[in-house]
């Protein structure tokens, strides 16, 4: 009896095949997810961005249909063009919106890091019995609607709001501070809303860190402060990168916070986009704005992916 014909080896081959198929299937799930929920919508938006506005339903043309057969479809496709993208370069509003969004997102990301790092560090160093509770407190705000929480900040920040009342009562200030409807309010709103996205990845890298490394550094002559920078901070860089991107990427496209807290002076691309869609009903230009926004964000996303891969390779 040759091994190949034995029933056990057949079984084994079958099992190997099925595990191979199962393995492929497992990989297929995220790809299917990407395809259905990212690539298909992306191409729809991209196609709209190449269309023209029209007073119709949907409000752009051409709208593809198979009524006139393949030839008719081809004639429609030929009507697509990059006019909307050219338009974006002709009105400074868009450029300023992008720049201002990136600037606001970058500054708030930095602020989130400055506030988030000590929080994450504190939780990671807390007694292990306390850690779960502290983490819970970081996540707790998620249990309330985001919109309501941002509204609540209006009540806190407005000239006659809680913050000003408190400061006036404490005689720290004599006139109410104007925070609401300025970019300061947007920074506060973003830092507040996105703090958990910074704290969680930071916590997970800091929590894994071997404390004897700090002792080793101090043993070799580092003061605690310099040991922090040379070891703790350096080794938490992957967490810092992850946290910063998790905050920066959604912050660039943020709409609700600048709209509710930033007033009309705060220019952010999310607001511009919303205006194009709902006030101007110019779906093609709005789509072009969205596509460019995506291209801007691809840079940090790719960087993030590479950083993750590098960290994975370097770690252990």
């Amino acid at each position, binding site marked *: 009896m040759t091994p190949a014909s034995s029933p056990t080896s057949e079984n084994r081959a079958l099992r190997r095949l099925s595990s191979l198929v199962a393995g492929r299937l497992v990989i297929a799930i995220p790809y299917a997810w990407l395809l259905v929920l990212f690539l298909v919508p992306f191409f729809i938006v991209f196609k709209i961005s190449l269309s023209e506005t029209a007073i119709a339903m949907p409000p752009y043309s051409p709208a593809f249909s198979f009524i006139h057969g393949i030839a008719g479809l081809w004639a429609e496709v030929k009507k697509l063009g990059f006019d909307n993208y050219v338009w974006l370069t002709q009105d400074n509003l868009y450029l300023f919106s992008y720049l201002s969004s990136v600037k606001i997102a970058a500054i708030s990301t930095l602020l989130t890091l400055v506030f988030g790092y000590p929080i994450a560090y504190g939780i990671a160093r807390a007694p292990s019995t306390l850690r779960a509770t502290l983490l819970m407190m970081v996540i707790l705000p998620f249990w309330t609607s985001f919109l309501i929480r941002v509204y609540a900040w209006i009540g806190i920040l407005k000239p006659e709001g809680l913050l000003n009342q408190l400061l006036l009562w404490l005689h720290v200030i004599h006139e109410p501070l104007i925070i609401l409807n300025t970019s300061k309010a947007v920074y506060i709103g973003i830092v507040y809303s996105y703090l958990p996205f910074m704290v969680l990845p930071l916590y997970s890298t800091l929590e894994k860190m071997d404390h004897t490394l700090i002792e080793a550094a*101090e043993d*070799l002559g580092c003061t605690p402060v310099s040991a922090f920078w040379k070891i703790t901070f350096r080794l938490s860089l992957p967490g810092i990168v992850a946290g910063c991107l998790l905050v920066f990427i959604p912050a660039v496209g943020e709409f609700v916070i600048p709209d509710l807290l930033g007033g009309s002076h705060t220019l952010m691309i999310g607001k511009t986009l919303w205006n194009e869609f709902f006030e101007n009903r110019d779906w093609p230009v709005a789509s072009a704005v969205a596509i460019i926004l995506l291209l801007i964000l691809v840079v940090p996303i790719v960087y993030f992916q590479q950083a993750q891969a590098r960290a994975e390779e370097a770690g252990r």
Partner: protein
Amino acid sequence: MPSLGSIRRSFAPWNDAAAKPYIAFENVTKKFGDFTAVDKLSLAIYEREFFALLGASGCGKSTLLRMLAGFEEPSAGRILLDGQDLAGIPPYRRPVNMMFQSYALFPHMTVEQNIAFGLKQDRMPKAEIAERVASMLKLVRLGEFARRKPHQLSGGQRQRVALARSLAKRPKVLLLDEPLGALDKKLREETQFELMDLQHELGLTFIVVTHDQEEAMTMADRIAIMDKGEVMQVATPADIYEAPATRFVADFVGTVNLFEGKVADMSGDAGRILGADGFGLRVDNLAGAKNGARAWFAVRPEKIAISAVKPADEGLNAIEGEVWDIAYLGDMTIYHVRLEDGRIVRTSSVNSRRASDEQLTWHDRAWISFRPDAGIVLTR
């Protein structure tokens, strides 16, 4: 040129009343909450000594080292280094370096950078750092791995990087916490000799923590046996083995047969230890004991002879029993002999001749015998 052995034999500052200890623990206690990890411990360690702390896991060895390195403050008592009280001096200002049990290599730095780390903290000039790192790499034979990261090294190589890093600053005292724990047996034995040579070459004081008695016996000038945060005995490896102070030490290091009884018939240092069965062991080192006091005669297996017939010499202690177990190890054979009252006595004999027919076998009647000075009388 004198051999290492002869130099070591003449090195015994602990016997010199004029010698000042380099490191002194004075009544040091360390409590973690209610738990006492180190209990009123006193120790004196001399310059250039290779000192071992030996004890079961959890007996407070690491805690003792960590107090010396400055990671823990004693709850009570003082630690002196070269006469200076170390209280309040942070780890980064103490002239001691530690090789950590887990090695604690910095994962984001290469081997070279790990070794240079301590030197950079001291603001040593770049050229000197490079020179020192190169010499350390040569010492631990890792030259070709200088640019690797720790995760690209084997366990033995990592251990050598950790050693090089802790030695790079030429500390006055090197603390080694189970330095060889992660190595396999062969590599461990090789490294033990390397460490001894290194310590001697550099003229440093080494304090090594271990729970492996063979390791401690091999490397150390003196060993402190620890139990539950206390030092049970401090002595040279030979004294620990041949003259243990307590039953705990006798039992902890090597194998021992303990014959319990009451001291009787003392005349000078000689006398008997009367067992419960009425059998009196003849012993001649009863100094300090009292008639009627409880005592144990501790005899190592290799000092007990085993034979099929009663030995002719009346001066020997001879007891009859039955061969209960035999373990043939090649170079020697271990016999467990069961006495009338059920006690098991362990003996070991060197197989100096090749196997012969007249060997004892299971359930044979046999006589065990040892001289009155073969063991030591313990009262604790």
